[in-house]
């Protein structure tokens, strides 16, 4: 089974190639047609459109999509449930609440770091701890209870966000609404660099423990009896998972279903081995969100729809189908 090594490289490189292809092609698509030779020759307006509006946006979508898919795989392993994602667990709305609170309080920077980012991370972490606390009490819980916990937390966070919006000033309300609509926007390269510097190491750290996550996805005692230090692994999962979900939410707002569709589709194709699943989810999630974003800005061009709307339209029906098939298998 030098086989397993070959399988790993084939899967990882082919998904990476898909993400690269999207990176090359997506910036060319849009309301104004441009071409690379003109853009690279520095000719206006192709150059500006490519490097200042489209490329940063595609890069952001790639990074955010990859991060969301990896966070999905991670939460699914931690909770041993294929329906666990940042969005369904309420972690994304926790991050939103954090961000909205930061806007309301007028925080801009905390020790040179953007306040919205930190607040999102904190909100995500609090919700994740809450859900996991509910979920692991009494050892194990059904996915339905888990989803109900997620729905409740979503509702609470939404109510809190509405309340904050109500008491906010007019200017703040505008900022909040604009931010909540989410969506991938053209960002400057220094923000992108920050985002990459946050997301990529986190993904890497999760991947390094891929074998341990395999055992954890089967059971805690199962992992512990095979030499995994469960509490340390779970702690790293909490921190890295809420960090990923919080970072994405801070920059792109709440985007659902990427962490659900991508890992599920890949498991059907590649199986459950996290050594394959984690890197392939990163690249596939990246490509998926970048494609969705390209659709979002071209389908009704020049009007742009938030990318969250596109992922929800694709992901919502898929989620219901998954829920139904899961229930059937539970009843059998």
């Amino acid at each position: 089974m030098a086989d397993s090594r070959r399988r790993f490289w084939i899967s990882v490189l082919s998904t990476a190639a898909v993400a690269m292809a999207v990176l090359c092609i997506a910036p060319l698509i849009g309301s104004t047609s441009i071409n690379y030779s003109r853009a690279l020759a520095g000719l206006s307006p192709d150059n500006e459109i490519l490097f200042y509006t489209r490329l940063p946006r595609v890069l952001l979508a790639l990074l955010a999509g990859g991060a969301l898919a990896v966070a999905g795989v991670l939460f699914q392993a931690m909770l041993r449930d294929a329906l666990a994602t940042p969005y369904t667990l309420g972690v994304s709305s926790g991050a939103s609440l954090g961000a909205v609170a930061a806007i309301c309080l007028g925080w801009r920077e905390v020790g040179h770091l953007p306040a919205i980012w930190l607040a999102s991370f904190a909100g995500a972490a609090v919700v994740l701890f809450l859900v996991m606390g509910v979920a692991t009490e009494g050892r194990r819980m059904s996915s339905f209870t888990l989803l109900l916990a997620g729905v409740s937390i979503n509702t609470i966070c939404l109510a809190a966000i509405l309340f904050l919006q109500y008491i906010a000033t007019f200017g703040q309300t505008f900022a909040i609404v604009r931010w909540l609509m989410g969506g991938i926007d053209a960002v400057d390269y220094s923000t992108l660099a920050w985002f990459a510097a946050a997301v990529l190491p986190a993904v890497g750290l999760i991947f390094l423990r891929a074998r341990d996550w395999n055992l954890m996805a089967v059971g805690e005692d199962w992992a512990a009896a095979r030499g995994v230090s469960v509490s340390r692994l779970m702690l790293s999962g909490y921190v890295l998972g809420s960090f990923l979900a919080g970072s994405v939410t801070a920059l792109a707002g709440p985007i659902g279903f990427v962490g659900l569709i991508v890992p599920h589709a890949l498991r059907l194709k590649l199986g459950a081995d996290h050594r394959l699943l984690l890197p392939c989810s990163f690249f596939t999630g990246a490509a998926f969100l970048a494609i969705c974003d390209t659709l979002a800005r071209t389908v009704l061009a020049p009007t742009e729809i938030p990318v969250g709307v596109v992922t929800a339209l694709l992901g919502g029906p898929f989620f219901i189908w998954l829920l139904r098939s899961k229930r059937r298998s539970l009843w059998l």
Partner: protein
Amino acid sequence: MTPLYSLLEAGMRYTGPPVLDAVTLTFDAAQLVTIIGPNGAGKSTLLGIMAGLRPGHTGRCEYRGIEPEHWPRRAFARKVAFIPQSLRVEFPFTAEQVVLMGRTPHCDGLFESPADLEAVESALAITGTLPFRHRDFRSLSGGERQLVILASAVAQQPETLLLDEPTTFLDLQHQVAIYRLLRDLSRRGMLVVAVTHDLNLAAAFADRIVVLNSGRVAADATPAEVLAPERILEVFGVASELHRGPEGRPWIVYG
């Protein structure tokens, strides 16, 4: 020779009366020991303490002179394998991947070493699970699953194997197959401790039976000594007769 396990007044209580109350036992290598007793007698708790999965017990439980919790986790996992009562797997792992998980304490890299693959191959062969190595674990029958889980423990190459009710819900063929395998492993020097509800399986295969009742050791001896009708009546509240099967093995008929 010092025993592998020595338990001295080991106990466990959550709230209310202790689940396990001052159990003193030792276990040596190359034995097949079964632990029997009614529901709630503390069998699983005892096994959990021995596996190092139930911290906070009272008394002492030492493996080679060190409490399981104080062993480095991976080093302990190279010595002692534990098989839980049931395993519900949510994700599409293949049988072979489940077996491969037993190698976790032995390897550091992202990919398995030749030694890992060799151990997996032989574990699959020993347990007769080669035919369904590539199948989704969730699609296997109860008996096949249990064999795969056992293969995973064999691949771990431990000196001690702890099993919590390995044959519950299995058909006769798989029950016997699993106990034959456990007996072979113990003949080759492994300490095998299995919790079971099936007294006749215990009688047929075990070198030694430990009877737990209300968290205490009610008996600890060879099957023939332990399975006397008086004791069965006292511990389980069921009348029985003790017969001799082939090879002089005791055989219980419930009356």
